């Protein structure tokens, strides 16, 4: 009788080991199937990947060769996104405390963002209340999202596929959580270092308190040494060429409970303006611009810089304000009002469609006057 009991006791660990082996055998195929199903559900796009692996001891998930292509596919179409490797990690300790905390690291991603004419028939979106939205989802946190050696290409499909290229991109986003206590008293932090076009070095630092009573964030952007020749695809269209010189831009912005303030400081160095063609009008324009540069530069040898500071001011507190278009509208207004009285068209009063659509509308010269974006004169 006692020997019979002992045999049963041996069976328990045996069954557990068998279960673990079965899980290990079937886990990868099951997760592979679930991931592919998830990719198949993306609206208007199709996703594939080369390989996937799941680990249990340090709970994690590795996806290799992820490729997302817009559908219906066109010949020689570039993928919307490609990532050599995506690694996700969970923490058993946090899971046992009822929180899902995840770390995501992406290597060598290439993201293509097409900018197109939007669908004006889409209904207007309600204003985003970040704290309420976060608290409505299960307790989860993104401890760190990291992009390494990646690139983002903005393609303006409305203007001959003109491209803005961010490459050698290193980005971190840390401490994003759906509960205050998961933030450990620290703000959400975003840091970015990348190259813009061939020459510009772009650094960004952003901090945000998503649980403050209103929208509260602060950040800065620094663009250094962008050769004006890198902007040739834009500048030649105006009949002018900027074959020499560089531009630095420093911007800082703070938003305290919906009140946006800040400034943008562009600095042009060693600029030379020439005509893009032999037309008399363009030659005169180029001559005037070149003379203006010479007169107003600081005449420091080797630098010859001209600079200005453009103030930013906006109000994001009102209930009918759309966040994305208004922030972009305020930034654009600052440039427009500060730099050229002739450019006074600014983004639309109501954000329609998705974020990309709103962003494109906000940056479009053809859009209407905003209602809520205010400009410090």
């Amino acid at each position, binding site marked *: 009788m006692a020997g019979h009991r002992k045999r049963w006791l041996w069976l328990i660990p045996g069954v557990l080991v068998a279960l673990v082996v079965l899980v290990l055998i079937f886990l990868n195929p099951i997760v592979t199937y679930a991931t592919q199903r998830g990719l198949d559900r993306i609206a208007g796009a199709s996703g594939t990947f080369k390989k996937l692996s799941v680990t249990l001891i340090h709970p994690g998930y590795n996806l290799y060769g992820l490729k997302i292509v817009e559908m219906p596919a066109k010949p020689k179409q570039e993928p919307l996104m490609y990532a050599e490797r995506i690694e996700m990690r969970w923490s058993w300790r946090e899971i046992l405390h009822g929180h899902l905390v995840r770390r995501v690291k992406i290597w060598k991603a290439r993201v293509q963002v097409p900018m197109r004419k939007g669908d004006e028939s889409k209904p207007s979106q309600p204003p985003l209340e970040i704290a309420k939205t976060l608290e409505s989802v299960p307790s989860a946190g993104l401890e760190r999202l*990291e992009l390494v050696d990646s690139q983002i290409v903005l393609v303006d499909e409305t203007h001959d596929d003109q491209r803005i290229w961010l490459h050698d991109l290193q980005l971190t986003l840390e401490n994003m959580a759906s509960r205050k206590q998961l933030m450990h008293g620290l703000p959400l932090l975003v840091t970015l270092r990348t190259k813009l076009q061939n020459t510009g070095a772009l650094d960004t630092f952003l901090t945000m308190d998503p649980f403050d009573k209103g929208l509260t964030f602060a950040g800065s952007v620094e663009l250094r040494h962008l050769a004006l020749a890198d902007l040739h695809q834009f500048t030649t269209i105006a009949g002018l060429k900027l074959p020499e010189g560089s531009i630095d831009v420093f911007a800082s912005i703070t938003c305290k409970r919906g009140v946006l303030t800040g400034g943008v400081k562009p600095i042009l160095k060693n600029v030379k303006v020439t005509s893009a063609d032999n037309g008399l009008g363009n030659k005169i324009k180029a001559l005037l611009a070149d003379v203006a540069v010479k007169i107003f530069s600081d005449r420091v040898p080797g630098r010859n810089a*001209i600079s200005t500071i453009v103030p930013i001011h906006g109000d994001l507190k009102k209930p009918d304000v759309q966040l994305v278009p208004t922030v972009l509208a305020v930034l654009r207004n600052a440039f427009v009002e500060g730099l050229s009285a002739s450019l006074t068209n600014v983004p639309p009063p109501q954000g329609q469609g998705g974020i990309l659509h709103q962003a494109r509308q906000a940056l479009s010269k053809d859009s209407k006057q905003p209602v809520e974006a205010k400009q410090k004169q």
Partner: protein
Amino acid sequence: MRRTLPSLVGGLLLAAGCHAHQVQAKQNTMEAPPQQPQVSSARPVRTTPGGMLDPKAMHQIQSSLSRHGASAPSSGQLDDETQEALRKFQRNQHIAETGMPDYDTLRRLGLDPKSIYVGGAQRAARNTPSPKREDANAKDGDAGDGQGDRRQ
């Protein structure tokens, strides 16, 4: 984009002239970003890492970097040399090379992000006289205004 950008560049050339005399007077400070007042909230937000770190916190980061083989000057400021040392350390750790003291970098340096960032911001706020104290979120423990964003 085609029409806006060149117009902005052209407008920039013209408008910059209005400020040229100011530029000449401020040649040495030209490459500093526009100054911004700081924001108080339960989790302090700042426009630059320099706005969240006081010299004491920066010294801690620099000495920790040096201990980890990424030699950094003991300047107490987030200067170019320190950012380069941070990048070197991040490269060695196989994490994103932003050159900024993000939370993960601080933890890998053996430092507590809360004492470095929040403590630094609070010390900076205490040491800097603030002309106007914004209404604080007292319930969550306000970090105060660190007026004058020190670009370092």
